[in-house]
């Protein structure tokens, strides 16, 4: 560490007119500002997607409810899924990657700042396009508004014969635009990590967060490309007389499924790997120990990325593949469980023998570990293809993937918010509101998604807008809905915490958590240039070396 003697000047807050400030934000190419833009826009769409989820839940609260028509219900679950995956989860994780990767590898910005801004705005305008469909989706036909083809847009439901008007086109173009944005960001992350690491930071000394985002970015390139190709093929089908997926002219519905899921399954890992990255930074700091088995953690991530490229057809066990194909995708899917299990064990190994501080980021991390364990185990059940023939397309599967996405990804994200918000704003988030947020969300989550497994076992398929009173699904659905509202209240607490702490939170200082990676060596928030002088590192935990000159990590690595 050569920069320890240099004091970083505090950021000058200039009082400019708001139009100037807005202009600065809109035209910015600063990775930190773009990161915050990604996160802020994702939070906006999180609220919209959440409202859609609540409409779904109120409609299903009891049998034969008629709050919304079937058409509106179908739009709600289509918009909910599309929004949450493409316009909440991906952007928010890209936002954190954008903000953190350059800081953690000691760089002054991303490798391609203008590509970075371009990627963000592509994705943001993609989201606007999707939501514009509520106004403009009907087209000439008058077939209603907003896409209603499900977030997989299975053929031939997305063909013009079954989806007239323009609502599906808004879906296609929105996903295509955000896909190009994602590819741009992925290229940028890879280039940044490969070429902008500070002196001394070999690949073996890189923080795990950077490693995992590197792997994630590689997966984005491999997964988003077939999705974008498929979207273009769908547009060709719809407007240029193509027949790729047009079953009425001999096209193949199954071909679309393969295209979609060869994106769709790696996508799950694209979302969860950055969350593994948050865990791999937060758990060590709050256990006061280095990550257990760093090389194995990197190896397991690469293994997950590799194996998860060949598991996609476990989404298609009911499609009628041969018994050999079903067996193949069973074993690949189960095999992903091995490196994933190694990660869980290594996190527990990190906590083992530590001095665990149960602050809010750590609470969310423990919640993540607990829920991700269960999600993984229900995943093993679904990987066993005959079991999947019963569970697939039922509420069990809905419960399973919400366990991954809410119980895993969202909990990890909340942990990341509480951990890095002080760095981004210079203020601490309130611990007491944070604990309210955690416990309310934890209770709401388990009320909703634990119970949701049961109607699936009792034969309730997903994506139905109502059900018969005689099926005995009423009470379970009511409990699920109550849990959803408790989660919504927890989100309000979280938003209140973000806003109140921004103005009234305790001052954070450079390093509020006594942490070890480079982002904590600069001021909070960091200046536009990040580091007054480029740091030099000698180990994986440069700030540990600085704080413990008598026992530096560099002696052991």
């Amino acid at each position, binding site marked *: 560490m050569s920069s320890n003697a240099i004091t970083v000047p505090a950021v000058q807050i200039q009082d400019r007119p708001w139009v100037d400030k807005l202009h600065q934000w809109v035209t910015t190419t600063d990775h930190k500002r773009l990161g915050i833009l990604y996160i802020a826009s994702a939070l906006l769409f999180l609220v919209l997607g959440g409202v859609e989820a609540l409409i779904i839940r109120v409609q299903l609260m009891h049998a034969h409810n008629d709050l919304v028509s079937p058409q509106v219900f179908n739009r709600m679950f289509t918009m909910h899924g599309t929004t949450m995956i493409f316009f909440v989860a991906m952007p928010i994780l890209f936002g954190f990657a954008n903000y953190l990767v350059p800081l953690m590898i000691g760089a002054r910005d991303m490798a391609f700042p203008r590509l970075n801004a371009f990627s963000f705005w592509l994705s943001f305008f993609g989201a606007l396009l999707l939501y514009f469909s509520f106004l403009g989706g009907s087209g000439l036909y008058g077939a209603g508004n907003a896409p209603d083809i499900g977030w997989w847009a299975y053929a031939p439901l997305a063909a013009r014969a079954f989806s007239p008007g323009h609502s599906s086109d808004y879906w296609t173009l929105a996903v295509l635009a955000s896909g190009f944005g994602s590819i741009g960001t992925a290229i940028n992350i890879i280039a940044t990590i490969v070429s902008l690491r500070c002196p001394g930071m070999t690949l073996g000394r890189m923080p795990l967060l950077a490693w995992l985002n590197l792997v994630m970015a590689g997966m984005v390139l491999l997964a988003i490309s077939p999705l974008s190709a498929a979207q273009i093929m769908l547009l060709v089908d719809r407007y240029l007389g193509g027949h790729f997926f047009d079953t009425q002219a001999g096209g193949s519905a199954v071909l679309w499924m393969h295209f979609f899921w060869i994106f769709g399954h790696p996508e799950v890992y694209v979302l969860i790997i950055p969350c593994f990255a948050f865990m791999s930074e937060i758990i060590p700091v709050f256990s006061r120990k280095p990550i257990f088995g760093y090389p194995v953690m990197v190896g397991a991530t690469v293994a997950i990325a590799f194996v998860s490229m060949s598991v996609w057809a476990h989404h298609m066990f009911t499609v009628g593949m041969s018994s050999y194909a079903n067996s193949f995708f069973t074993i690949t899917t189960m095999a992903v469980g091995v490196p994933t299990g190694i990660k869980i064990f290594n996190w527990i190994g990190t906590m083992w023998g530590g*001095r665990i501080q149960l602050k809010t980021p750590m609470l969310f991390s423990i919640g993540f570990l607990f829920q991700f364990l269960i999600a993984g185990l229900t995943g093993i059940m679904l990987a066993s293809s005959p079991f999947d023939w019963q569970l697939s397309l039922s509420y069990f599967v809905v419960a399973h993937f919400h366990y991954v996405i809410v119980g895993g990804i969202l909990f990890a994200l909340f942990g990341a918010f509480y951990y890095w918000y002080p760095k981004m704003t210079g203020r601490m988030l309130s611990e007491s509101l944070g604990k309210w947020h955690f416990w309310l969300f934890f209770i709401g989550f388990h009320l909703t998604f634990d119970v949701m497994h049961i109607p699936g076992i009792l034969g309730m398929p997903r994506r139905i807008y109502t059900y018969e009173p005689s099926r005995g699904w009423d009470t379970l659905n009511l409990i699920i809905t109550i849990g959803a509202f408790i989660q919504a209240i927890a989100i309000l607490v979280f938003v209140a915490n973000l806003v109140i702490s921004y103005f009234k939170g305790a001052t954070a200082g450079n390093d509020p958590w006594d942490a070890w990676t480079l982002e904590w060596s600069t001021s909070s928030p960091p200046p536009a240039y990040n580091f007054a002088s480029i740091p030099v590192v000698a180990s994986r935990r440069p700030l540990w070396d600085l704080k413990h000159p008598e026992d530096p990590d560099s002696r052991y690595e």
Partner: protein
Amino acid sequence: MRRMTSSTLRIVSQVIFLLWAATAVWAGELGNSPLHTTNIFAPSSTPAKSIVELSVFVLVITGVIFVVVFALLAYSVVKFRARAGDAGREPAQVYGSTQIELAWTIIPILIVVVLFLATARVIHTIQDAPQPPTAIEVTAVGHQYWWEFRYPNLGIVTANELHIPVSDPAHPTPTFFKLLSADTDHSFWVPELAGKTDLIPNHPNRMWVDPHKTGVFLGQCAQYCGAQHAKMLLRVSVDSAKDFEAWVQSQQQPAIQDERAAVGRRVFEGNACMNCHTVAGTPANGRFGPDLTHLMSRGTIAAGAAENTHNNLRLWIQDPSAIKPGSLMPAMKLNDADLDAVVSYMETLR
């Protein structure tokens, strides 16, 4: 040893089944209508039964993994919490351990191998089962939003309510399905008889069931197929050999020609009805909608969305969206006299 394991498994499976049954009953008692629940852990046919056996095996293994890992996690959270006394001091810095990490790589690999072998066996038993010559063949065609059932060897066409014979293990009469779709993707799911299989246009699929007891089994379309995916319900009536024989006999007859309903028949054939519906033995031979030759032999209309009563039939013909909004059956906009006539014609189609 093997015997012990299988009897343990049976006990566990029964415990799990009772648990779910209890849940179902409890869920039902709070509702106020008579219950007809389904449960994947209450199988009545070989494919569903093999799945339950495999499921219990998977549940036991995942359950053990859960208990072990959860215990480790809970122990480390409780045991290694920071205490007031150790402020400022850092714990021993441990970087990893090759032996331990090797152990928690190899053990999961072994578990995966075992799970895979158990799974592959069941995949093969269910999917590659040969079709015996005594099997009943049914072609199921998924439509937006109803089911067409054709029995090519028996010359029967019906809709939404499937009749199949019970299969006696001594003289098995399983039913083998060919699954087709007329429009979008659907999925055939009767949880207590078998896992689901999709009906996909241009992609014929196959599945089979051999019900072990008579009765009505409920299911519904499981693959999102459009606006009324929710009301694409499915009833399977498993009949005794004798009842099935009688049902086949009656279904093979052409429609009853009842002179008292001649007016209604004229309305039916003079309107768009016959473009979509078939009534065997009359000029009506449309195939877009359900075959109505023996409409009154069915307990429900609109793919199970309503009971087959006089008032529901009348409402369905006049305003289908009152029962099933988004259904492709158009509102026929008949005057009252024509409507009554058509309904009485329908009621003669036994």
